[in-house]
C-alpha cells in the first residue's frame, strides 16, 4: 500500500479552486429554456380553479404546464408498494386537484429566462378551498382528522411491532422503571447548492438526457424512465460536480419528473435551479421524530429491558425511492447499540402530515443513538451514578458471541475502547474537578459523551446489496475506473484512485475515476449514500482492478515469455522477479493488446477491461464503524448561550484511505449534529404554515459557532484483504447525543432533564427558569 493511508491531495481540487468546477447551474445548452415552479401557499387545500391565461400571454413565456398537464404524460408515483404493511399512497409529480403541503408544486412555467419565468408565476391565478391541515403527531393518529390521501385509510402509513426476549420478566425484575419521551425537531440537509437539473429531450432521436445534481445517477435514470414511461435505453443521466447533498440528492424529486416531462412536451432543453426559499420549504426535511421509552433498570445500574415507541412525521408524500418506512426497523435494530440487555418491545409508526417530505438525512436512523445515549445519562443521573460507569456496566466487549437483543452480531466492536480513550484524551477526572469548582461559583459547566455504532458495511451476515465497478486499462497504460457512485464532496475521484493505484501498481495520476455518466458506469440504484462509498465502492474498485491486473499480467507474460506469477507491476512498469532490467512499461503491454492482439499467442485474453461485483467477501474486521464523542459545554445563565468548550472524537472506521478526507467527514457530520441541537429548526405553525423559509429563519451555524474538533482514530490494520468502513454518517449520528448530554450535565444542579433535542438559547432560558416556560 503506497497511497492508501495517505492524505494525498485531492484530484478534484484544481478545478474547484480555479472556478472551473462543473456544477449543475453551469450547464448551458443551445436553445435552453428556464423553468420555475408555482407552489402552494396552503398546507392542505383543494384547488378549485386555475387560470394560466395571463401567464401564457407574457412575452418570453413558452409554456405554462399544470399538474394535470404533467399527469397526462407521466406514471403515477407509488413508492415501495411491496414493502410489507406499508400503506403506500399513489400520488402525482405535481398537485392536480389538491395541495398537501406549503410548497407543493401546482404549475411549472417554461420561459426564455428565469426572470421571466418568475414574473409569469405571479400571473397564474389559483383559487384554493382550504382544508383542515394534519400537522402534529396527535393529528396524524386521530381518525377524525381528514385523510391526506383518499386511497389510504387514516394517516398512519406504517406500523411495525416486535418483541425481543421476555419483556415482562425484565420489567418484573427491575428495581426502577424510567419513563421518558424524547423529541427531535425537523431539520434539513441544506446543501449549499440547491436542487437543480437540465432536462434535454431530443425530439429527433427520442433520447432524454438529464443533467442532474444527484447522488445516484443510475437511480435517477431508473426512476425517470419508470415515471416518464420512457425506454430506459433512451434515458441518459449526466452528473458533474455536486454541491453537497447529505442524502437529499439521493432521491428523485417530483420536480425532476415534472421538468423532464416538460422538456418532452416542449421539445427543448429546460433548466431548473431552485432558489433557497423553495429549497428550505420544499426540498426535504428530516428528524421530525420522537421515541417514548421505558427502561427497566437495577439499582446498581444494569439495564434489563426497554419498551420503545417511535413516531416519524414523514410529511405528506413518501420520498422516492427512500420512503421513511425504511427507517423504523433500522432504528429498532440499532437502538440497543453496544449495550447488553435481555428484552425489548418496539413499536414504530410512520405518519403522514401536511408538511414537506422526508428524504434521508445523514444517518437517517440517528434517533436510535440520540435516545439510547440520552437514556443512559438519564438513568445515571436518577441512580446517582457517573454516566461513564453506567456505560461500562452495560457495554459489550465485542467478543465473538456478542449479539444485541435485536440480533445484531457485535463481534469486534471497539465501543469500550473508544469510550475509555475519549475519557482519557479529554482528561475526564480533571473536567469533573473543574465542574465541581464551577458549580461552587454557580457556573453551569457540563460534560457529555455518547457512543455509536454504524453498520457500514455491517457484520457479514447483514450484507445484502452488492456493487460493481468497471475498470479499463487504456492504451497509454493508464487506468479508467468507472463507478456508479455519485460523489458530492467526499472526494471519490481521489480515494477510489488511491485504491486502484495500489491494487494495480500505478502512480496516482495514472488513474482516472469516472462517475456521473450512466452510459459508462455500472448499474446501481443507490449510488452514494449509507456510507457505501468507502466500503462497497472501494471493494468493487479493488476486486475489479485486481481482475484487470491479472489480465494485463497475462498479456505481459505472453509478450515477455515469463510466467505471470513471476511478474509484478510497480509504478506502471511490469517487472519480472529478479530481473528489473527487463521491465516493460504497462503502456507497451496495453498498446500491444489494443493494436496488435494478433501477435499474442492464441488464447491470450487481450481484453483489458473488467466489471466485477463486490459482495463483501474478503473483508476483515467487525464491519461496524463506531466511536465515542465527548463534549464540554458552559452555559451562560444570562443569555442561554451554550458554549462548546471542547469537542473530542474517538473514531473507528477501520483502515483509513485518506486521513484528511476522513477527518473532514467527521467534522462536517459533527457540525450538522451540533446545528440540529442549537440552531436549526424547519418550523411549522399550527396551521402547517412554513416558518423557516430564509437563512435568517433557518440558522446554519457559521465559523464562530462550530468549535475546533479534536480527532483520534482507533485504526485497525486488516489481517488480509481490506477493512475499510464507512465514516460519513457517524458525526451526525452521535453529536446531538454528546451535546445534549453535556447540556443536561451542566444543568444537573437545576434538576433539569433534557428530553428534547432542539435547545436554542430561548429554550435554555426556560429550562434554567430565567424566563417562564
Amino acid at each position, binding site marked *: 500500500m503506497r497511497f492508501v493511508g495517505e*492524505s494525498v*491531495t*485531492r484530484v*478534484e*481540487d*484544481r478545478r*474547484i*479552486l*480555479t*472556478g*472551473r*468546477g462543473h*456544477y449543475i*447551474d*453551469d450547464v448551458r445548452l443551445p436553445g435552453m429554456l428556464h423553468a420555475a415552479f408555482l407552489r402552494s401557499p396552503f398546507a392542505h387545500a383543494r384547488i378549485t380553479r386555475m387560470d394560466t391565461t395571463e401567464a401564457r400571454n407574457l412575452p418570453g413565456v413558452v409554456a405554462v404546464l399544470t399538474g394535470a398537464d404533467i399527469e397526462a404524460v407521466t406514471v403515477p408515483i407509488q413508492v415501495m408498494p411491496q414493502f410489507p404493511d406499508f400503506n403506500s399512497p399513489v400520488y402525482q409529480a405535481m398537485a392536480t386537484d389538491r395541495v398537501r403541503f406549503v410548497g407543493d408544486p401546482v404549475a411549472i412555467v417554461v420561459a426564455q429566462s428565469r*426572470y421571466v419565468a418568475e414574473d409569469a408565476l405571479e400571473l397564474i391565478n389559483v383559487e384554493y378551498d382550504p382544508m383542515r391541515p394534519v400537522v402534529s403527531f396527535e393529528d396524524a393518529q386521530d381518525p377524525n382528522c381528514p385523510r391526506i390521501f383518499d386511497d389510504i385509510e387514516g394517516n398512519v402509513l406504517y406500523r411495525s411491532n416486535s418483541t425481543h426476549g421476555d419483556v415482562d420478566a425484565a420489567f418484573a425484575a427491575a428495581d426502577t422503571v424510567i419513563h421518558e419521551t424524547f423529541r427531535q425537531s425537523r431539520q434539513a440537509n*441544506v*446543501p*449549499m*447548492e*440547491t436542487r437543480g437539473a437540465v432536462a434535454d429531450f431530443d425530439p429527433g432521436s427520442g433520447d432524454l438526457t438529464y443533467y442532474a445534481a444527484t447522488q445516484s445517477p443510475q437511480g435517477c435514470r431508473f426512476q425517470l424512465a419508470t415515471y416518464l414511461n420512457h425506454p430506459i435505453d433512451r434515458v441518459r443521466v449526466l452528473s458533474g*460536480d*455536486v*454541491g*453537497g447533498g*447529505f442524502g437529499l440528492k439521493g432521491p428523485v424529486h417530483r420536480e425532476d419528473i415534472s421538468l423532464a416531462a416538460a422538456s418532452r412536451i416542449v421539445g427543448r432543453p429546460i433548466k431548473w*435551479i431552485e*432558489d*433557497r*426559499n423553495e429549497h428550505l420549504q420544499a426540498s426535504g426535511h428530516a428528524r421530525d421524530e420522537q421515541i417514548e421509552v421505558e427502561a427497566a433498570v437495577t439499582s446498581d445500574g444494569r439495564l434489563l429491558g426497554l419498551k420503545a415507541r417511535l413516531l416519524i412525521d414523514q410529511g405528506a408524500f413518501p420520498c422516492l425511492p427512500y420512503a421513511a418506512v425504511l427507517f423504523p426497523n433500522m432504528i429498532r435494530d440499532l437502538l440497543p447499540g453496544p449495550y447488553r440487555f435481555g428484552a425489548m418491545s418496539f413499536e414504530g409508526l410512520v405518519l403522514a402530515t401536511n408538511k414537506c417530505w422526508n428524504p434521508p438525512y445523514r444517518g437517517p436512523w440517528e434517533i436510535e443513538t440520540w435516545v439510547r445515549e440520552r437514556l443512559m445519562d438519564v438513568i445515571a443521573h436518577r441512580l446517582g451514578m457517573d454516566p461513564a460507569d453506567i456505560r461500562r456496566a452495560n457495554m459489550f466487549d465485542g467478543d465473538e458471541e456478542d449479539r444485541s437483543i435485536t440480533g445484531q452480531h457485535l463481534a469486534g466492536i471497539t465501543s469500550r475502547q473508544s469510550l475509555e480513550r475519549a475519557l482519557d484524551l479529554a482528561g475526564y477526572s480533571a473536567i469533573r474537578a473543574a465542574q465541581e469548582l464551577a458549580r461552587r461559583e454557580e457556573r453551569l459547566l457540563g460534560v457529555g459523551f455518547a457512543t455509536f455504532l454504524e453498520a457500514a458495511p455491517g457484520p457479514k451476515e447483514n450484507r445484502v446489496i452488492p456493487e460493481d465497478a468497471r475498470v479499463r486499462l487504456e492504451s497509454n497504460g493508464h487506468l479508467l475506473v468507472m463507478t456508479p457512485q455519485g460523489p*458530492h*464532496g*467526499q*472526494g471519490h475521484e481521489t480515494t477510489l484512485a488511491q485504491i486502484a493505484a495500489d491494487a494495480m501498481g500505478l502512480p496516482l495520476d495514472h488513474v482516472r475515476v469516472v462517475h456521473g455518466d450512466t452510459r459508462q458506469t455500472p448499474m446501481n440504484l443507490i449510488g452514494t449514500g449509507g456510507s457505501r462509498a468507502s466500503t462497497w465502492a472501494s471493494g468493487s474498485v479493488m476486486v475489479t482492478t485486481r481482475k484487470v491486473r491479472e489480465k494485463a499480467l497475462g498479456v505481459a507474460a505472453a509478450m515477455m515469455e515469463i510466467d505471470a506469477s513471476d511478474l509484478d507491476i510497480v509504478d506502471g512498469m511490469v517487472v519480472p522477479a529478479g530481473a528489473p532490467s527487463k521491465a516493460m512499461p504497462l503502456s507497451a503491454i496495453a498498446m500491444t493488446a489494443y493494436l496488435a492482439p494478433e501477435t499474442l499467442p492464441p488464447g491470450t485474453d487481450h481484453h483489458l477491461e473488467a466489471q466485477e461485483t463486490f459482495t463483501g467477501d474478503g473483508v476483515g474486521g467487525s464491519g461496524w464503524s463506531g466511536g465515542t464523542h465527548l463534549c464540554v459545554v458552559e452555559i451562560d445563565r444570562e443569555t442561554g448561550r451554550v458554549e462548546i468548550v471542547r469537542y473530542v472524537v474517538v473514531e473507528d472506521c477501520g483502515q483509513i484511505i485518506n486521513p*484528511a*478526507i476522513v*477527518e*473532514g467527514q467527521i*467534522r*462536517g457530520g*459533527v*457540525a*450538522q449534529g451540533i446545528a440540529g441541537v442549537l440552531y436549526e429548526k424547519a418550523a411549522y405553525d399550527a396551521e402547517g404554515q412554513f416558518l423557516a423559509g*430564509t*437563512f*435568517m429563519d433557518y440558522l*446554519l451555524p*457559521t*465559523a*464562530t459557532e*462550530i468549535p*475546533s*474538533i479534536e480527532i483520534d482514530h482507533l485504526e485497525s490494520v486488516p489481517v488480509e484483504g481490506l477493512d475499510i468502513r464507512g465514516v460519513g454518517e457517524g458525526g451526525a449520528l452521535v453529536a446531538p447525543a454528546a451535546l445534549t448530554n453535556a447540556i443536561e450535565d451542566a444543568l444537573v444542579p437545576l434538576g433539569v432533564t433534557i428530553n428534547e433535542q432542539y435547545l436554542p438559547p430561548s429554550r435554555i432560558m426556560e429550562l434554567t427558569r430565567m424566563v417562564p416556560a
Partner: protein
Amino acid sequence: MNRHPVHVKINGVDRDGYVEARKTLVDFIREDLELTGTHVGCEHGVCGACTVLVDGQAVRSCLMFAVQAEGCEIRTIEGMAGPDGELHPLQAAFRDNHSFQCGFCTPGFMMTAASLLEEGPLSEDALRHELSGNLCRCTGYQSIVAGVMDAFERVSDSTGEGGR
C-alpha cells in the same frame, strides 16, 4: 424590458454587457460574462457563496445589480491563479489544508479571504468572526480556518506573491 449598457473590468479584462436593470451582478457575471466560478447559494445575502471583489471590497454579488457595477473593477475566483496557471497562495493553502469538500461555497470563502489577506494576519478568533459571513455545510469550518491561516503565513513568507 429596457436594457442598459454596463462596462466592467473583470479579472483585468474589459467586458461590456447590455442588461435589464433588475439583473443581479452575479447573474451578469455567470450568464453574460460566462464566468461560472462564482456561485449562487441563497440570493438573499446570507450564505456568501457569491462573494466577489468589487474595487477591492468583498461584496455579495446577489445583492447588487449589474448596473451598479458600471465602471468597477471586479475580481472573481477565475482571477486568482497566475496567467501561467500557478495557484495563488490562498488556493494552494486551501488545497493543502483540505479546506473544502463539495466546493460550492469555496469561491465565496476564497474571495472573502482574499480581501482579508490584503489587510494582514488575524488571530484565529478574529478570522472566524470575519469568515462568519460565509456558510459551508461540508467542513465544519476548521479546515477552512486552517487554510486561511496557512495562506496568511505563505503571504508573509513570500512578500510580493500574496499582494497579487
